[in-house]
């Protein structure tokens, strides 16, 4: 999609001929995130959709205890140390950001009085600063008022390398000033079209200055509040045992009327996904369960119990295969898989195309994932209603055979194709996970019919995803021919996501295999376009560039996207929850209630 077309669409939304939701869906199908698409509209001055509140309770409290089950329990409650979503969710019960993303990419104010726009003077014309006005009359759980100083402190805390905050990446390149007691200005070093990263969503939770003040920097680990959070959220802290349980009780002074509904919340950890699904869907012992990585067949049987149902929420996670363009077996300049080497088969475009034709995405969706996976050809998200016109997928063994025949790969006596003495035998690795091993088998079967012999290898997750420099089996090293894993797109801005195909991010010995470009894709055209995108101030032009980048990688078959993996959550039939694929499960916890 070109810049002009995007502009036309935005115009259509402005005059009201195109529903906002449809616009966002279309851009999402092209590889952008919903928050990013929503920001395009905001830049164009189209007002955000006013999400209709479906919240029914007319008084605070009285709802009993909300019992949530996280099969990986929260291990710490300091949002800026959170090493995974489980910790962010645990912290989110007590701490709040200025705003959150809803499922359609709208920014919803939480601690902000309103969302900054050009119209209300929040967004600077040059894209270099944002002014957030904070809600007044918000108090911390200990009764102290919430002010701009707390935002300033959060920024200083997170950016200080001595604190070792996980969120440092979001805060280190910005500058935050206090305008008055309830207004802050975030200044960027360069024009930043995507301005809603700091103080927003999972990484934006604000911590109180008066509690953490004495413990910033090197002493950050000693803060008592790391275990006993003091926030502004709908629930106050009552108990925490790392890895086991987080408990909160109702905050009677919460800053939104009639909220929260529940008198207490309990987030229990431990166990496994299947029994968590059972406790919610089948026995109804718990109200809500996070991340049900369970085969759909099994969940359907549990749902028959009639206590709960599975909610499937679109998000940007993609299961995909990478084809190694370098030679992983011979050392060049003291390094396996060096970019100076060439893979004997995957450097041929025809072979890559054949490999893509051999991925039976529909079979994988139907027989392995069910509701929890949707076949896709796009590297990024792809809701079925708006299939991208730019890329498409096909499963066609005959066509793959023709392509390979045409490229000069002839079948040998054992049925395996060869060319120039090199046989088509590939090692295909992934992490240990029963679903992934089934996917490997599906792909191996198709490849066999096309005269390609796959050797399947599975590496335990703790090793595969580690950054252990000494281990040869990490995904960052990619010392085999093909590998498969899921990449998440939690970050709403595509810039960070698309840098994984730039040549300077290539994972190599020089950067201890920490580079983000693990599949070692290199294209001058891509690099050039990416740089243009970085410098582009106009959000529409920028969006068009990212869509083009996405198409480039897919058309080249450098990676083979298989399945988008929506989030699967289990909830009691009576529990009304508002879930977003672009934010935490608890992003709007204050609005959860139980129907009578």
């Amino acid at each position, binding site marked *: 999609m070109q810049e002009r077309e995007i502009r036309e669409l935005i115009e259509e939304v402005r005059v009201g001929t195109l529903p906002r939701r449809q616009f966002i869906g279309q851009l999402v199908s092209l590889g952008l995130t919903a928050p990013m698409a929503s920001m395009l509209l905001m830049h164009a001055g189209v007002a955000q959709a006013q999400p209709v509140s479906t919240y029914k309770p007319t008084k605070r409290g009285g709802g009993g205890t909300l019992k949530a089950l996280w099969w990986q329990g929260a291990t710490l409650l300091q949002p800026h140390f959170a090493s995974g979503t489980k910790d962010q969710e645990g912290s989110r019960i007590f701490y709040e950001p200025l705003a959150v993303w809803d499922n359609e990419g709208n920014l919803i104010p939480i601690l902000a009085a309103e969302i900054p726009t050009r119209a209300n003077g929040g967004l600077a014309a040059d894209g270099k600063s944002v002014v957030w006005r904070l809600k007044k009359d918000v108090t911390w759980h200990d009764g102290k008022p919430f002010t701009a100083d707390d935002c300033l402190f959060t920024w200083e805390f997170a950016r200080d390398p001595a604190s070792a905050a996980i969120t440092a*990446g979001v805060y280190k390149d910005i500058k935050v000033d206090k305008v008055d007691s309830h207004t802050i200005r975030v200044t960027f070093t360069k024009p930043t079209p995507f301005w809603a990263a700091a103080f927003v969503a999972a990484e934006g939770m604000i911590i109180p200055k008066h509690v953490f003040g004495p413990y910033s920097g090197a002493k950050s680990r000693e803060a008592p509040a790391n275990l006993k959070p003091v926030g502004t959220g709908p629930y106050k802290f009552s108990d925490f045992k790392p890895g086991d349980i987080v408990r909160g009780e109702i905050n009677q002074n919460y800053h939104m009327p009639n909220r929260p509904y529940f008198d207490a919340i309990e987030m229990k950890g431990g166990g496994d996904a299947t029994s968590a699904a059972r406790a919610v869907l089948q026995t109804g012992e718990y109200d809500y369960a996070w991340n049900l990585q369970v085969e759909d067949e099994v969940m359907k049987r549990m749902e028959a119990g009639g206590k709960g149902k599975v909610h499937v929420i679109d998000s940007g996670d993609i299961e995909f295969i990478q084809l190694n363009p370098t030679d992983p077996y011979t050392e060049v300049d003291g390094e396996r898989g060096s970019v100076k080497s060439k893979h004997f088969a995957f450097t041929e475009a025809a072979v890559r195309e054949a490999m893509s034709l051999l991925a039976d995405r529909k079979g994988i969706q139907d027989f392995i994932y069910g509701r929890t996976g949707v076949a896709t050809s796009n590297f990024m998200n792809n809701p079925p209603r708006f299939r991208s016109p730019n890329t498409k997928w096909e499963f066609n063994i005959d066509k793959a055979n023709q392509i390979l025949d045409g490229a000069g790969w002839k079948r040998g006596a054992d049925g395996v194709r060869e060319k120039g003495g090199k046989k088509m035998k590939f090692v295909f690795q992934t992490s240990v996970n029963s679903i992934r091993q089934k996917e490997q088998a599906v792909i191996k079967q198709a490849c066999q019919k096309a005269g390609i012999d796959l050797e399947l290898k599975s590496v335990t997750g703790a090793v595969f995803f580690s950054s252990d420099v000494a281990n040869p089996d990490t995904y960052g090293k990619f010392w085999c021919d093909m590998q498969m894993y899921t990449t998440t797109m939690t970050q709403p801005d595509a810039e960070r996501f698309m840098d994984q195909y730039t040549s300077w991010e290539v994972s190599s010995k020089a950067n201890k295999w920490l580079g983000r470009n693990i599949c070692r894709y290199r294209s001058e055209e891509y690099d050039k376009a990416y740089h243009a995108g970085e410098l582009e101030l106009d959000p529409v032009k920028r969006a068009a560039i990212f869509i083009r980048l996405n198409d480039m990688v897919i058309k080249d078959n450098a990676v083979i996207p298989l399945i988008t993996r929506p989030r699967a959550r289990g909830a009691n039939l009576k529990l009304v929850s508002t879930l977003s694929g672009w934010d935490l499960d608890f992003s709007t916890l204050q609005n959860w209630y139980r129907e009578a």
Partner: protein
Amino acid sequence: MGSYILRRLLLALPSVLGISVVLFTVLALAPGDPFEELATNPNVPAEVRLLLRAKFGLDDPIWQRYFRWLSAMLQGDWGFSFISRVDVDILILQRMPVTLAVIGASQVLALLIALPVGIYSAAKPYSWFDRIASTLAFIGFSLPTFFTGLLLIYLFSITLGWLPFVYRADITASGAQWWWEHLRQAIMPVLVLGLFQGASWMRYVRSAMLDVIRLDYVTTARSKGLKERVVVIRHVVRNALIPVVTLVALQMPAVFGGAIVTEQIFRIPGIGSLLIDAILRNDTPVIMAVTFVFACLVIFFNLIADLLYGWLDPRISYR
């Protein structure tokens, strides 16, 4: 006696040290990384991860890390968890009461089953009661706890819906309600562990009894005209239980290990589940501390068993 205990304790020191060296080396050589979760999160710049590794000293050579750990341990500092950044001793103390309660209850249950059944079986060997008890005991210790655990969950939680299968350490209710809730959730895990342990102990009790019951002094007691009850309880059981008592003491640490699986199934927040979580997340300080505690328990209960044996059987003396 005092000098014997002292000597044993001194001897235990090198073994504890040896164990710690082996544990530390194995853990350091094992693949994995506590910050693995960060690696797959593109929002976290690689520098943050490297900084964390450096800050927690993960990049130093193994021997340096070992001596740092050892010297801290000697000063009573158990270190802190890489994952939760909480002190390890706090983590362990938090988990201790639950493990002790569940394991303790299951041990009591095991003894309550093993002693009467074992004694009665031996008093009337090869009777119908003995045959049925032995058969059940064989079944009991042949079935692994993870299997019986799932079986009980299926029966009592899913089919009948009587008992919860998620164990909660902090129940808000008070008074009788509190006891009732705890009892309900503890029934299944305690049964699983207790029956398994009870089954094997019952076999020990029975064979120990059979060894003693044939001895001459028992025949003498009988010929004196003592009642069978008195003979069994006063004369046979007292002597037969000597090996059983030591066995129970020796089994104690093994029971902590056996509870790991059960704790995982029922989500009991005990030491075992702490260990499993720590292993899955490569949280070295926690793994070190928990396994080290287990090692010390083994050594400690060995000593207890030896002392008990001497105390119960005066023919054995310590020099």
